[in-house]
């Protein structure tokens, strides 16, 4: 087992895996709406085409980043991870507090189905529109996964490990989705988003600091207390936000 297994490898792969679950579940809802409205062919073609584009992005961008000096890369990736992670954590806290509504897969499925059914044209045109809808959904939801995989991979040379984490999540969602054949509304999306936001924020602070020349006490081990601080802050903020939100305006 590598010495940084628990502090770097495990959290990085876990972040890629959990983030992928969140995004793939959302993409699967749209793909399922396409499949039930216009058949599986446009759904599968659109999905495979989007996955190919995303795979290409990761395969080109990941190795290309290795040519950037490590401190500049860590600073750049760290800042992006911090902004992205804090964005997810903020949204997850607000949803957890009831300030923002939770993402509803059943509603998303109904909306997409209604939109597809409202389209007019020849059967071929309708299949094209459906295929493009599947392509767009997988591409847009997958962009965040591709970013996490590339960012986490570039910072510590874990591109393959992070990619495997993301692919495992894809496979899991597809297997479960194919078995139940309906939107995966039981997945605790916000809890996953909360956890990933915590991990990415901790990675972001750590790598931004490394890029600036910060000396972290305990080196990689500081990631654990950093994640714990973000987690506890998130929980406390969710409670404070709920209390404040339920109070009537002054």
């Amino acid at each position: 087992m590598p010495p940084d297994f628990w502090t770097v490898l495990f959290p990085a792969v876990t972040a890629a895996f959990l983030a992928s679950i969140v995004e793939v579940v959302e993409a699967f809802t749209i793909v399922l709406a396409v499949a039930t409205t216009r058949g599986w062919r446009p759904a599968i073609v659109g999905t495979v085409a989007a996955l190919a584009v995303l795979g290409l992005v990761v395969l080109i961008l990941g190795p290309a980043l290795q040519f950037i000096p490590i401190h500049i890369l860590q600073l750049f990736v760290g800042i992006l991870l911090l902004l992205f992670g804090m964005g997810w954590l903020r949204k997850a806290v607000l949803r957890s507090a009831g300030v923002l509504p939770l993402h509803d897969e059943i509603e998303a499925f109904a909306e997409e189905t209604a939109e597809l059914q409202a389209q007019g044209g020849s059967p071929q045109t309708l299949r094209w529109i459906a295929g493009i809808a599947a392509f767009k959904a997988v591409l847009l939801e997958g962009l965040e996964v591709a970013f996490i995989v590339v960012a986490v991979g570039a910072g510590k040379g874990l591109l393959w490990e992070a990619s495997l984490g993301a692919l495992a999540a894809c496979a899991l969602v597809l297997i479960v989705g194919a078995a139940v054949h309906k939107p995966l509304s039981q997945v605790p999306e916000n809890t996953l988003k909360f956890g990933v936001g915590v991990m990415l924020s901790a990675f972001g602070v750590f790598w931004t600091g490394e890029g600036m020349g910060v000396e972290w006490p305990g080196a990689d081990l500081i990631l654990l207390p950093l994640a714990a601080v973000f987690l506890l802050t998130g929980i406390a903020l969710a409670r404070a936000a709920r209390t404040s939100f339920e109070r009537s305006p002054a």
Partner: protein
Amino acid sequence: MNILGDVFKELFKMFVADLRLTIAILAGIVAVAVLLGQGVVGPVAAGLLLAAISIAVLGEAVLRETRRRRNR
């Protein structure tokens, strides 16, 4: 459907979900870098300061959005 436009919009949203949060984080990073570069804070304190700023910015962003939605 403008797919490329949607891709860029999604990329923008990934890092600028809340403009004030993004600006505050970037300002915090610049401030810590300047303080570290001028020797005002040491390399260990700079890291702790960066973490503290991030936590404070997160708290402000959550409570600001909560107030905004409550008062609507």
